[in-house]
């Protein structure tokens, strides 16, 4: 009995992994079709993506480093979706985290890297977390769908950041009216890197491991699981007030991790925030690389598992980085690779029903 159960768990796992690989392959094929729309060769396009991401040691280190912000965003989304908080506002939360990091490190006037980074990450966590917690509170108090409110608040955040970048924290060196950039973070606030790998990458790995442990082994992780699987059960077990507070806490933690992703982006890579002239509905100037949305593909491709999310994050980040290579070397717009991740999300949405069908088929044979 015990052995039969273990076998079926193993079989389910392997089917899940195969399914994830199939999703990735299908989206890559769709991407190839899109490239040929322009009359280019898909093979050389994917060759460029590969060589600019893992072609040599330096590029590989850069790609791994770049995956840190996305891993942090994915952690925030794992918490959210495990606890049934539908966070669609990752874009705005990441943007807010980034600008908070810039403002904090810029205004502190300290030259100590550790203090600056700590202050930046904590501030980003609190600001973005509070922004996401608004959605949680609105859901608890008024019953507003969390996905609707988080999407709307995300658009609002983009305008707030646009103002901050335009007036109080505008870069003095920007002359072009079309592109607005924020001030740069002080040199001391740059995240140190080791052998070409940014320090944010081990930080992201550590958060993933800690989160995996918390979700699997602690009381909080258990409560999250209960709330995520059935709200009524959670209310019956913990009482309504406690369930509501837990939901708001989930929203806060989710936004907080996503904000840390924004701060990681600023402190390790961009150094400032760039906003397009239009303000944009939900991604000011492309600072976030659509990570708030791509993160959703990551976590569902990884079956809401923090450790598997690392691998999925690296895959999607190599698409994004490879997209930049495509732009430079083949003049193919970077939005192509974001479309490819969109197609992956499309197929990920059908993952559970497909699994059910496969299971039914396997039972029959």
């Amino acid at each position: 009995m015990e052995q039969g159960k273990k076998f079926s768990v193993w079989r389910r796992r392997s089917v899940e992994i195969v399914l994830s690989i199939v999703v990735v392959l299908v989206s890559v094929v769709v991407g190839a079709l899109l490239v040929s729309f322009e009359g280019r060769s898909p093979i050389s396009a994917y060759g460029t993506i590969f060589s600019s991401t893992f072609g040599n040691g330096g590029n590989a280190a850069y790609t791994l480093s770049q995956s840190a912000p996305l891993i942090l965003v994915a952690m925030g989304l794992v918490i959210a979706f495990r606890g049934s908080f539908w966070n669609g506002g990752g874009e705005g939360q990441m943007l807010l985290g980034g600008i908070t990091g810039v403002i904090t490190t810029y205004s502190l006037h300290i030259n100590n890297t550790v203090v600056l980074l700590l202050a930046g990450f904590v501030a980003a966590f609190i600001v973005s977390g509070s922004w996401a917690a608004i959605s949680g509170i609105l859901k608890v108090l008024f019953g507003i769908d969390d996905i609707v409110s988080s999407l709307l608040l995300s658009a609002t955040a983009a305008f707030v950041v646009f103002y901050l970048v335009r007036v109080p924290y505008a870069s003095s060196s920007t002359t072009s009216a079309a592109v607005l950039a924020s001030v740069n973070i002080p040199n001391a606030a740059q995240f140190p890197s080791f052998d070409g790998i940014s320090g944010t990458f081990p930080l992201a790995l550590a958060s993933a491991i800690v989160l995996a442990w918390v979700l699997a082994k602690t009381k909080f992780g258990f409560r999250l699981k209960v709330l995520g699987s059935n709200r009524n059960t959670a209310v019956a077990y913990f009482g309504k007030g406690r369930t509501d507070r837990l939901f708001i806490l989930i929203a806060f933690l989710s936004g907080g991790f996503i904000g840390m992703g924004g701060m990681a982006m600023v402190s390790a890579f961009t150094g400032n925030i760039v906003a397009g002239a239009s303000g944009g509905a939900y991604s000011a100037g492309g600072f976030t690389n659509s990570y708030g949305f791509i993160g959703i593909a990551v976590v569902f491709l990884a079956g809401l598992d923090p450790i598997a999310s690392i691998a999925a994050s690296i895959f999607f980040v190599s698409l994004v980085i490879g997209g930049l290579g495509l732009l430079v070397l083949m003049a193919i717009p970077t939005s192509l690779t974001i479309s490819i991740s969109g197609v992956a999300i499309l197929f990920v949405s059908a993952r559970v029903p497909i699994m059910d069908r496969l299971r039914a088929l396997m039972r029959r044979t």
Partner: protein
Amino acid sequence: MAFDLSFFTTLIGTTVFLAAPIVLACLGVQWSELSGTFIFGIEGEMLLGAVAGFLTALATHSIPLGIVAGLATGVGVGLLSGFFEVTLGSDQIIFAIALLVIGPSLSSYLYGAYVGGHELSAFSTSIPTFGPVPVPLLSQIPLVGPVFDQPILVYVTFILVILTHFFFYHTNLGLKVRSVGMNPLAADSMGTNVPLVRYIVLIIAGILAALGGMLMVMGGTGFWSDNVTAGRGLIAIALVRVGNWRTQLTFGAALVVGLLLASVADLQGIFSGGGAVTTTFPYEVFSTLPYLFAIAVIGISYRWTRSNQPASLGRPYKRG
């Protein structure tokens, strides 16, 4: 101080014009959600319809062909939604997020690829736009005259609002569609083909979304810009909740947002002093108003009214 009537006349005209794409998106959301399927990705559907219409009109120099292409895209996206959400029974929220990612990126890619492939400059890639077509007599009425001095697609929108309301709340067929949204099992046992109804409704929603997206491009400047729909689809989702899934209330709410948007344009012009970047006044506040308005009114309507939300919204229906 002279009371200037022409200011209000212009404002009313602009309000109706800016509200029309939102109204179309609202109708799409309402069709889809009254039959029990979430359509949070309508922003993406609008953008795909808009880019198809724009590129076809650009390539053929013909607006009717552009509209046909946009509508065909709407049908295609509707079929895709049906396949995933009805046939496969996908998670509707993840599917919506896929559309929210694909819409902006794919439309931007297709535009960039087309313009780059034909070596066009971004300044010369404009399409002819809809001119206003005044309705005789009605457009002469003082104050509300501009309501009847709009592109044809805006009149089509008004007609669609009336038709949608009549269909859902005054016909047997509409009741059947709503019953699919409330209790698909009961509808199925009464002989309604639930998957077919949801497919058709999703296609209609796709067409409405594509119309809204095309109105944003072809009714505006005739130039493409990335994210041309600028969050109108998101606002539409919220407005349908504000209007409690009732067409007339949603329409009213969309007009209020149209008025907000029209005043925002005016206020931004006043407070930014023309040069948008130089002033220190936070005119971005005005742009957030439609979003905050939507959140506030949803809160009020959820708390103090009997919800008309379809009972089976968001649940895929599986027979047996």
